[in-house]
């Protein structure tokens, strides 16, 4: 088992964002976490990376308790995080951004950089440009490449298709598939439910900080309740 979350509670001051959620991600899976805006998807990923402490519950990564582990340790443990909004270091070059992904890792990054440039040829062209000058799609590729530089065994992706043109979204989803083929387990947060479910093995639906549905991806794809969320009818914000 790659990841196990048991009854996790997260609060922002007086607001409870996650009311004790439980889910799991098995080795080699792509699991997608769906839900309307404000459901708690980003909070879940931030909790998994130690950016937000839990007020209750337990998180196990590869059997190890990481509930209280500080954020900067996770990349060394083997969890990569592609944050919502990409969060590229805009004043660093593309190459420096990629190097940042390997910050916690000892040794040379030359081979990894080459590999990233093979996966994302556009980044090679732009390697000397500042991250802030890239297009949205390029930034998303950079954010994914940056996370891969840390050699994650579990990759957390927060809405990688957000704000991108359909063709670019295609590319991003294709690359996510390839990353899994290469052996990385993936937890994918998306609002783009149809596309996420077509790629994923299993899915969870989050509503108001609670998991209300979980099933195999192909079954969720035909579920009327999922269709409601996917169409945004389930949004309460």
């Amino acid at each position, binding site marked *: 088992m790659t990841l196990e979350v048991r009854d996790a509670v997260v609060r922002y001051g007086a607001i409870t964002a996650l009311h004790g959620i439980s889910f799991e991600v098995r080795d080699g899976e792509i699991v997608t976490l769906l839900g309307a805006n404000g459901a708690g998807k980003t909070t879940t990923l931030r909790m998994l*990376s*130690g*950016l937000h402490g839990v007020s209750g519950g337990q998180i196990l990564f590869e059997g190890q308790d990481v509930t209280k582990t*500080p*954020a*900067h*340790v*996770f*990349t*060394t443990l083997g969890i990569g*995080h592609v*944050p919502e909004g990409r*969060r590229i*270091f*805009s*004043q*660093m*070059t593309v190459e*420096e951004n990629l*190097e*940042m*992904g390997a*910050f*916690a*890792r000892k040794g040379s990054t030359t081979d990894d950089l080459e590999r990233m440039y093979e996966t994302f040829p556009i980044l090679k062209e732009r390697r000397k440009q*500042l991250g802030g000058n890239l297009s949205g799609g390029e930034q998303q590729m950079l954010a994914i490449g*940056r996370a891969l530089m*840390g050699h994650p065994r579990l990759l957390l992706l927060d809405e990688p298709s957000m704000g991108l043109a359909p063709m670019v979204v295609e590319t991003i989803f294709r690359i996510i598939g390839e990353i899994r083929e290469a052996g990385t387990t993936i937890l994918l947060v998306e609002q783009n439910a149809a596309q996420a479910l077509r790629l994923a093995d299993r899915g969870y639906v989050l509503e108001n900080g609670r998991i209300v549905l979980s099933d195999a991806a192909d079954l969720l794809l035909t579920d009327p309740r999922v269709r409601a969320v996917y169409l945004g009818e389930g949004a309460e914000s």
Partner: protein
Amino acid sequence: MGAFGHYLVSHFSTLRLEFWGLLVGGVANGLIYGMVAVGYTLVYGVLRLINFAHSEIVMTGGFTSYFVLRGVIGTSIPNGWATVGVLVVGMVAGGVSGAVMAMLVERVAYRPLRRRRAPQLAYLISAIGASYFLFNLAGKEFGRVLLSVPQPYINHPIFSIFGAPVQLYYLVIVIASVGMLILADQFVGRTRLGRGLRAVAQDSETASLMGVDVNRTIALTFALGGALGGIGGFLLGLGTGVVYTMGFVPALKAFTAAVLGGIGNLRGAMIGGILLGVVESLSIAFVQPAYIDVVAFGILVLVLLVRPTGILGERLGRAA
């Protein structure tokens, strides 16, 4: 020609006569401002915080190097290589004590606030509190009079620029500050830790996702700025002696230099420092020396009004 015309003519002739001497002194002072300014600018770049206790880090460097040097040389007057040794010992003492004190201030006055996500105002009050605590403690422990190590060797002119004698003291300032500024610049721009520091400056949360220990990086930032501030304190003490309030005015001028160069910008701090030192020094040709501080802080107000982002603008995040 009116009275003002006479004023200008007479003072410009003073300026012409004394230009090189004033320039050398101005550059030397300015380099010290620049070195102290780096401390402000680094901490601001990373925490968006003006560390108003930085003046006491300068003071710490001044006192520590004073006591260490007094212990090492006593009342004897070194010469030749011994002089170089004394200067190196003083620099190390100033730099190390400045770094340690800066980390201590961060640990005691700022980190607890960060953990509690305190508002910006709390940091300002904490900084002023730390500053008052430290300089009053120094005043009580070391007395409130100016102390100086007898160091006549330091005022020997060693060569001259266009007839203006350059003392060994100025040469020491140039070597120490230019060396430290280049070191700091390369550290931030080229090393792995420096890249971590820039990442924290840009987006500390994402930096932590990359494996950067944000608290350690902040401590490192204070240490680096503190080392330069402490060496600045040593150099100031060498020139004018040490006293518990010695950090106040130079640090305020360094802050001016940091704003002038664009706070958060390392190279800007150096340029701002030199510029301020030179303008201040050349203004001696036009105004009474007692007005020098008025000129310096007049510049601060003017810069804030005209170009709040300074000459180079804010950009620590970037590979300088």
